[in-house]
């Protein structure tokens, strides 16, 4: 993990003049999804790369230590060993980027990963996930407790009411508090873009979150009605690019929610490569929040290696 981002002073001019043209962004989103086909070996390599970006996630009311433990082992062994060998990739240490759980399951995940003998970080959602409609004090406590339990990354949700009311400075202050509460843990800020009202608001919220010291900005909780979409992603990565241009700091991006197929993941990788460049194609700067994506990727890898599609029982469950 790279060094943490630190907050910088709030500068309203970075967001006040910005306008995002929605139809133009929609057109670009349409284009970018289809323009970079990768085939054959390139497809296999890209899919394996996508595996290393996955924050393997379970965020359900019925999560228990048993299924969290299963998930952690899948994170450690995301692709069947023989398939990796066939691709001569068995020694590349391919694991998912992190495991992402609710705060109450952090200690289970930390223990399971320790048992599995790997140092995959555990990410915890926090701050009243997914709605963020709790008191600031309890939201901050949530972060501290998760960090105490061993979470290395905290996925916080922002207070949408501040965005919709245009209280950007207040939003900045809140995220700065989150930043402090995280201590050494990485801060990933979920913008819940489906609830921000406009692409312009999404750009502004992205910029404020980065100014306030977020290490990642993340599209959504996966619990909104609209989750990670390409237009939203384009606006967020453009904000990341502008922030880099202004400060020299590279901030990470994490789309989450609704990314289920291997084909989707390839489109997301090409989006990052096109809009941000190869520098961002590493787990320190790009994550995909997903729960079922991994099994589809594994199926595609299976097909690439064997020329046949796997039956559901051919691949180990998470």
């Amino acid at each position, binding site marked *: 993990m790279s060094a943490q981002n630190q907050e910088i002073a709030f500068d309203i001019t970075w967001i006040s003049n910005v306008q995002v043209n929605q139809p133009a*962004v929609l057109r670009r989103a349409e284009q970018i999804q289809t323009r970079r*086909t990768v085939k054959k070996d390139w497809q296999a390599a890209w899919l394996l790369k996508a595996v290393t970006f996955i924050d393997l996630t379970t965020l359900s009311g019925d999560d228990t230590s048993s299924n969290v433990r299963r998930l952690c082992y899948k994170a450690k062994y995301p692709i069947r060993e023989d398939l990796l060998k066939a691709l001569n990739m068995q020694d590349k240490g391919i694991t998912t980027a992190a495991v992402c759980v609710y705060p109450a399951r952090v200690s289970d995940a930390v223990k399971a990963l320790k048992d599995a003998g790997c140092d995959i970080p555990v990410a915890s959602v926090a701050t009243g996930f997914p709605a963020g409609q709790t008191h600031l004090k309890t939201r901050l406590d949530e972060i501290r407790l998760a960090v105490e339990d061993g979470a290395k990354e905290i996925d916080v949700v922002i207070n949408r009411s501040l965005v919709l009311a245009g209280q950007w400075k207040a939003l900045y202050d809140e995220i700065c508090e989150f930043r402090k509460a995280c201590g050494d843990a990485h801060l990933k800020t979920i913008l819940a873009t489906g609830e921000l009202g406009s692409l312009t608001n999404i750009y502004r919220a992205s910029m404020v979150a980065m100014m306030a010291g977020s290490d990642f900005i993340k599209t959504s909780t996966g619990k909104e009605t609209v989750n990670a979409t390409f237009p939203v992603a384009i606006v967020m990565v453009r904000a990341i690019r502008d922030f880099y241009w202004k400060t020299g700091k590279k901030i990470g991006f994490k789309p989450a929610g609704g990314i289920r197929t291997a084909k989707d993941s390839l489109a997301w990788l090409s989006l990052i490569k096109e809009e941000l460049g190869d520098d961002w194609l590493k787990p320190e700067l790009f994550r995909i929040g997903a729960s079922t994506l991994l099994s589809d990727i594994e199926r595609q890898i299976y097909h690439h290696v064997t020329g046949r599609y796997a039956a559901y029982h051919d691949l180990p469950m998470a």
Partner: protein
Amino acid sequence: MAAAAATVTGPSAGASGVRSIFSTMDYGPAPESPSLVLAWLDKQGSTLGHFVNGKWLKPEGQEPVTCRDPCSGELLASCLQADDGFVALAVDVAGRALEAWSPLPGAARAQHLLRLAETLRRHQKLLWTLEAMASGRVVREVRDGDLPLAQQLLQYHASWAQTQEQALSGWEPVGVVAVVLPPAFSFIEMMWRICPALAVGCTVVVFGGPASLSALLVAQLSEEAGLPPGVLNVVMGTAPPETLLPGLPGVAKVAFSGPVQEGKALRRALAGSGADLSLSLGTESLLVVTDTADLDSAVEGVVDAAWSDRSPGGLRLLVQLSAYEEMLWKLETRLRRVRQGRSLDWAVDMGTRGPAAWERAQSYVQEAQSQGAQIFQDGSTPPQSPFFPPTLVLGLAPASPCAQAEVPWPLVTVFPFRTAKEALAMSNGTPRGGSASVWSERLTLGLDLAYKLLMGTVWINAHGLKDAAAPVGGCKENGSAWHGGPDGLYEYLHPVGIPPRPQGPPQLLDYDKFGLSAPPVLPSGTSPASATAPYGVFVAGRFQNPSSRSSRPVLGSGGRICAHVAEGGAKDIREAVEAAHKAAAAWASRVPGSRASALWALADAVSQRSQELAEQLVEVTGSDLADTRTEVVLSIARLRAWGAQVHAQGAGLHSAGPHGPFLRLREALGVLAIVCPEGAAPARLCVSHRPGLGLGQRHRRGAQRGLPAAGSPALPGHGRPAPPRAGERGDGRPRSSHPLPGPSSGRPCPVVLRLCSGTPVPARTPALFSVPLVEATAGPGSPKALPAPH
């Protein structure tokens, strides 16, 4: 299955490849197979012929020319080059097919178009692969851009054909249409033209070059779709159209698309041939980025306009100074991400358009550099590559010679501007009038710029969006042809009952001598019969002394002098044009009602003196008094009728497709010049020039703004006066669904008479009027397609 997988040997021969790709994360090749095209070419034999009269023709004795894939240089096929005789044959075939095709009910033609659409869909893969290989444009643009648009065009025009009898009553097809294709975009440019032409009942001869193999395929597929033989013919050749087309009496209209110079040459060559000409010239476009724009989206607009295979040509990019630095940074970043490569690769953005286009780009770059410009390219293109990389040209001043030239594809020449006003001055101060886009998130600013740009087509916060229902066209040196929408349809129609246009060389004035010396006129001793007019030329609302200070006699029908008029000269013309320019803006900006009142007042004035006017006409022309009276009465009626139509028709907001609405505007053309032919009688002069005033202004505008008619020297500072030419008619767009009354042909046109003097226009004096025209009578003007920002 699990056992099989446990001992995988797999097809993955490139396992080490996966390893290295995993670390580099490069893109790989994603090729489309050329096999279908190769099989099709194979079936045609070693040489592709022409497709005429529903079959392949390979006449003996025509020089073959090779057609190569511009990306790889591989030989695709040899094409024959049509000679004069063969072109005449093809036109003749189309002429004979017209006899059966144009009387068909519109509904039957609609079915033909729909069947053609279905046939194109059946063979779409062959079509997109062939077009990509022959043109060098990437296959993705052809498949995702051109083919759906072609389908839409066929559907749209089929709808028009279906309702033709009701929707287009009073109009008939012009006849045989010759379509000259540009080398790039030949497939879709062909569809833009043949769809409306075929729909309204014209037959077509398409002239294609070696890069237009897809035109031959479309013709072949049209035969398969059951289109009658001879309705759509494709003739191959490399000879310039101006050498082939004139002298072909069967061609009613030539639709040309190509470089500006060739368009000018064709206009000269076609003058007097009787054929209509519509030109869409030039490829450069303009993009204006204000500091209130979404800059990232504007950068994508630049990509659409210049750095992709959607873009026809280069781009002039104006960026507001306060956003200049950021915009440049974003452009340079974006430029590095454009992928170039073989047109058959699905993951490539740009192909190449052949060695000639490469040379044009390279020489522009070299010239710009020598004039102090900085060039920015990615730098990863190897030397000797057939691909010209996307390029930024910075720091070129508008006054440097290179900045006047048309920017070639795929170059972007960037100019900073300080204020919106300055941006308008910079963009309107060039001869270009094609397409532009304006980028601002402020609705008022965006609309204001779009209104004031002298461009045929303006997009707001988008670039290059096309829709079958939204007309797209140009003005100034880009020519005045319109495509799409009803405007595109009327290109191939004329009002019912137009007599055949006179042919033969146009009546040309000797402009080298015109107005420079007055012929000697000595007192004749006889007193003119009617000497009511004051002496002088009528300029800026009053009679002035002519620069020549001499007179010329006006001879009556019996050879008797019936009046002396002031002899005008070049200086008088210049002053008249100046006066007209001064008056033009104020006249055009008057409320329509006020212009209508002025025209009606004029009609009243004529009406009061109609008896006197008719008598004078009889005296000068010797024609029958009753006929002359009728002529005068009809002229007055028409003046009134046009006064009633000052409210621009057809303008307004329209919705089209998923891209949002567009706004279609009609603009006054500005100052018109009319040169009266020798010996024409006044009222008939007005009649013969009605198209010039009513329908033909767009051509005239082209003439005035940089497409000079042959042989007419420029008036300093005012463009050129263009005589109405036999080869040049109005674009025939309807002003009204009911043609207005007229003495002979019934064409819906206005009449302008010079009445204030009380004397009709002298019969033997070339007179030049400068008439700032009423908006509604100024022809259809320029529709502007502007998808609204939201």
